[in-house]
């Protein structure tokens, strides 16, 4: 297909209890196989926007205007059953806390295999073989061993790999990673970001990388949208936004890295006195 795999157009989300608009006019397109970054802090509306794209906007919040189009199909009329058909198959997601998505009392393997048995109607043996292939695809070092382990036996980085394996099990075309590396050590974060880049290259999976950290997004995404208090304050090619940020908030994010981060040493031409 040639159009965007995910398209959000003029999205407005309101809280009817207070009458406040939490998201106001957010728009972006994610091209097939592309990578879009969404940068924003808590309260920016980034997570509500992602949840809308997944059909899991928490009640009583509601979309009051705008459209979310998945693989060319407007999602406005979807029933819960219709969403269940799409989730996993067309769009998947990983969030900050992988532990919340796994049942602590079930082995890792059976949980990944279950996704395949239900979603792809695979038999027991085929589901196990495919689950092992997926655990290997997310670079878990000993898939057979991980298959038999329980969530508490794995580190945070390993759990996030398992959740990514489950999220891509039904071959979705878009994966949303919402603060998926925020709670991890820096070297583990890089492993997960490398894995996502690798999946994008190998399988053509389109990525939506959502983070409070502009630099995390810059690692993976060619296009970036900056959200602040429910509105898009800046958008564009990542290079252009990094080199000539227009909005004061984006300038603050760039400036922080250039003054206090590694960029101070890596990009001496950007170093300013004081």
């Amino acid at each position: 297909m040639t159009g965007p795999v995910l398209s959000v157009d003029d999205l407005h989300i309101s809280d009817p209890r207070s009458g406040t608009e939490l998201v106001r006019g957010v728009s972006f397109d994610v091209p097939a196989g592309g990578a879009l970054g969404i940068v924003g802090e808590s309260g920016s509306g980034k997570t509500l926007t992602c949840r809308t794209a997944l059909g899991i906007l928490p009640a009583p919040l509601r979309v009051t205007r705008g459209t979310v189009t998945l693989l060319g199909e407007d999602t406005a009329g979807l029933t819960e059953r219709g969403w269940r058909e799409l989730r996993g198959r067309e769009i998947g997601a990983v969030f900050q806390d992988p532990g919340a998505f796994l049942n602590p009392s079930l082995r890792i393997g059976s949980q990944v295999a279950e996704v395949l048995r239900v979603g792809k109607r695979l038999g027991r043996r085929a589901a196990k073989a495919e689950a092992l292939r997926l655990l290997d695809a997310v670079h878990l070092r000993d898939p057979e061993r991980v298959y038999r382990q329980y969530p508490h036996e794995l580190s945070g980085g390993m759990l996030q790999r398992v959740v990514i394996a489950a999220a891509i099990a039904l071959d979705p075309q878009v994966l949303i990673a919402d603060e998926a590396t925020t709670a991890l050590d820096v070297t583990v974060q890089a492993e997960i970001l490398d894995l996502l880049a690798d999946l994008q290259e190998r399988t053509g999976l389109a990525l939506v990388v959502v983070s409070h950290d502009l630099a995390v997004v810059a690692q993976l995404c060619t296009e970036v949208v900056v959200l602040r208090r429910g509105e898009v304050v800046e958008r564009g090619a990542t290079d252009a936004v990094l080199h000539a940020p227009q909005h004061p908030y984006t300038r603050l994010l760039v400036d922080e890295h250039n003054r206090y981060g590694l960029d101070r040493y890596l990009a001496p031409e950007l170093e300013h006195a004081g």
Partner: protein
Amino acid sequence: MPAEPPLLQVTDLDVRYGRTTALAGAALTVHRGETVGVIGETGSGKSTLARAVVGLVAPAAGTVTIAGEEVTAFSRRQWRAFRRRGVAQYVFQDPLRSLDPHLPVGASIAEPLLLQGRSRADADAAVRAVLTRVHLTADLADRYPAELSGGQRQRVAVARALVTDPQLVVLDEPVSALDAANRVRVLEVLTELREAGTALVFISHDLGSVAGISDRVTVLHRGAVVETAPTRAIVTAPQHPYTRLLVGSAPTLTTGAVDRETRAELRRQLLTVG
């Protein structure tokens, strides 16, 4: 200029929890007026090192010397007297830990001075002065911690640490929990502190967050110091494979410093070297 002994000297420090060795042969030197970053991830021993410097854990071997006094040889009474003098102060990630929720923040800031026997009027004047130093208005002194934003609370915690005019401030992840605007404000305050000649030890899991204000960096990995060098050398010419992976994993706005293949190779090396 005569060679001055270091303000903080940690030598051959071993800390064990039961049969687990948390720190083995750790060394750290901080000269007067110097800012040193201590970088390490989960299990690196960085929090143990901070606790040993503060006197919260007793080392199995080795010494910690602060301003010429061997604090590892202190009795409990000597520790109390040493703390009261306020030569070395500590700021933690969560400022709520050092601020009494039932006291106006001004009273919390004044407490170390009152313990030293200073007059109420004297302490109040010092509180106003130190609030200005951390870029807060003096009227904030009458508010309670719950009435302040996270960023204001962290600056109040820094103010409390500064009120005794310490020679050394140890900061454990002081900006990790803050949003961008507040991170930059706290980093600005710390930069001014450094320029005013206070020695800082900046403990963090993220090299990127402290590189810009550290003169030198000590890297901890699995309970041992793997590298200590001036910050520019650590960032541009790291020697140990772990330091290279850490630098190569820190998200930056400039891409391409370390590529995915190099990171993968470093991970393999660290697995085999152990």
